[in-house]
């Protein structure tokens, strides 16, 4: 009983309750026929939202106004460049991963440079830089679709012990993020800055260093996600990151991370990512048209947020 009470007090529990409810509603409708397939698909597609969501979570936790809008462009550029570098050659996989990381780091540095040097709000800084990154990707891509190396294509679509490999990658990254957030000084610093930047600075937190590291971390995760997604879908596309702009923000907030910053949690990202994918597949199973699907997704998101909210205390 005590355990239940403590679980219910966790901010992330609602995302999991909602995800489980939708999962149950879907398999009941199909009479349990698609249980395994649905669970695997949910883990696979949720994995991509989880990876970008984790980066976005750290950025949002930095406080009001902090959000990274360059995630889609970063994903696209990393996917295109990495596939071109590897050129379907299994031996060049390490080079491809290195290119991916380099792109993530470079974009992160550029983003924070704009925020810090020009003192513009992060939302506008990352928006402007995303335009430039997107243009670079268009210019670099030239409409050619290069396939991923055979080994990577195999890895990203296969499963180990019934669990999709991309979900395992997401799990490893999540554990790292959890340790950083809950056990390391870095996570304390990020939360402290989000709660009160001035107080954090006075308390000796290296505010600029932490914010810089967070934007770089977020861009690197976005680049990695773009890399994995382009391997998974058999090639990079120029619009492949588009849907992750809203998704990355939505999973963070639905997962119970405070939108005003200063308070984050990793498990919620999993709950929210699974929930968002399962809602769409449930509506697909019920045979809803595209319009109805969008409409209901929106209404369900709002309902979950209202259910998880507290009354105004002022």
């Amino acid at each position, binding site marked *: 009983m005590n355990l239940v009470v403590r679980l219910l007090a966790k901010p992330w529990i609602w995302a999991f309750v909602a995800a489980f409810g939708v999962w149950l509603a879907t398999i009941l409708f199909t009479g349990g026929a698609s249980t395994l397939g649905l669970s695997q698909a949910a883990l696979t597609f949720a994995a991509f939202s989880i990876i970008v969501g984790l980066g976005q979570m750290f950025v949002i936790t930095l406080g*009001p*106004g902090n959000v990274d*809008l360059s995630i889609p462009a970063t994903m696209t550029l990393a996917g295109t460049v990495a596939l071109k570098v590897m050129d379907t050659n299994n031996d060049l996989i390490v080079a491809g991963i290195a290119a991916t990381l380099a792109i993530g780091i470079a974009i992160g540095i550029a983003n924070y440079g*704009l925020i810090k040097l*020009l*003192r*513009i*709000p992060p*939302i*506008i800084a990352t*928006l*402007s*830089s*995303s*335009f*430039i*990154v*997107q*243009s*670079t990707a*268009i*210019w670099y891509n030239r409409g050619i679709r290069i396939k991923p190396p055979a080994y990577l294509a195999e890895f990203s679509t296969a499963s180990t012990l019934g669990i999709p490999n991309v979900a395992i990658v997401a799990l490893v990254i999540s554990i790292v993020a959890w340790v950083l957030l809950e056990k390391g000084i870095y996570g304390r610093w990020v939360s402290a800055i989000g709660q009160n930047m001035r107080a954090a600075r006075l308390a000796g937190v290296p505010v600029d260093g932490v914010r810089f590291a967070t934007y770089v971390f977020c861009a690197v995760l976005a680049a990695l996600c773009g890399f994995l997604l382009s391997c998974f879908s058999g090639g990079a596309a120029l619009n492949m990151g588009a849907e992750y702009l*809203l998704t990355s*923000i*939505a999973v963070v*907030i*639905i997962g119970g991370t405070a*939108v*005003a910053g200063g308070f984050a949690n990793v498990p919620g990202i999993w709950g929210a990512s699974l929930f968002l994918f399962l809602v769409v597949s449930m509506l697909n199973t019920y045979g809803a*048209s*595209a*319009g*109805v*699907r*969008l*409409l*209901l*997704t*929106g*209404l369900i*998101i*709002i309902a979950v*947020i*209202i259910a998880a*909210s*507290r*009354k*105004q*205390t*002022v």
Partner: protein
Amino acid sequence: MKWLTAERLRLLVPALSLVVLLAAVFYLQPRTMSYTGLNLLFNLAVPIALATIAQMLIMTVNDLDLSMGTFVSFVACVTATFLQTDPLTGALILVGCIAVYAGLGVIIHLRNLPSIVVTLGMSFVWSGLAVLLLPAPGGVAPDWIRWLMTSKPPLVPMAIVASVLIAVIAHFLVMRSAFGVVIRGVGGNERSVARAGWSVVRARAATYALAGFFAVLSGICLVGLTTSADANIALRYTLLSIAGVILGGGEFVGGRVSPIGAVIGALTLTLAASFLSFLKIPPDWQIGAQGAILIIVLALRLILNRRESVEKAK
């Protein structure tokens, strides 16, 4: 230097950027220096300016509307279908939309919800409704709006008359009326407004309703220019409107906004697109160059803001 108040200095950079950009366009393409040329240059700015004012109102009370683009698209779809065939139903739907916006303001306030998330959810709802209404591009613009948007007043083109009118009306609403003082107060210090005896929930509801009203006007004007609509017609308005407000000297928090600046910001963004096409920049780099222009204007603002703080220190 007495006339150079902080508020006017705030307007100086956006106004200067617009003048410089306009001069560059005139230099590159002297034929734009005519009645028709100016009309063509600024035609599409009218709906963007209206959407920017709507976004600015929401930002006045420290919120952000991520559903602006999808909402304007939905309004465009209603205008091209119901408002044309059955004006009464069409008008009722649009009034209903404004009521929904007021309701959002109430819910966001009472449940203490982050506006970003609620409007994110609403963006799915609006685009779902738009897809249901117009699954494929189509519809016809009502004759009266077509007539209004293509009318040719003497001496000054319609687009400029409309922009000035929007700026003046918004300026009086936000900067000169009692209502404007209250909503800017909510953005500056919500608690002090409440302690002074004003109803914050009513102020927020009114702000959202007014924003909804401007967004509805934006959708109607857009259809007047394009003659038909589709469900994705104005998706980029979400980011354009935010960028317009910031370019015009507005800020995300604190109720510091400038309606005239916001309209100038919208005009600058529209002009930037024409400027780039006159420069014959390869299409690959069009978006990137737009990002670069945003960065340059914001850098200019930084230099002038420094001057402002030096003046204050004296």
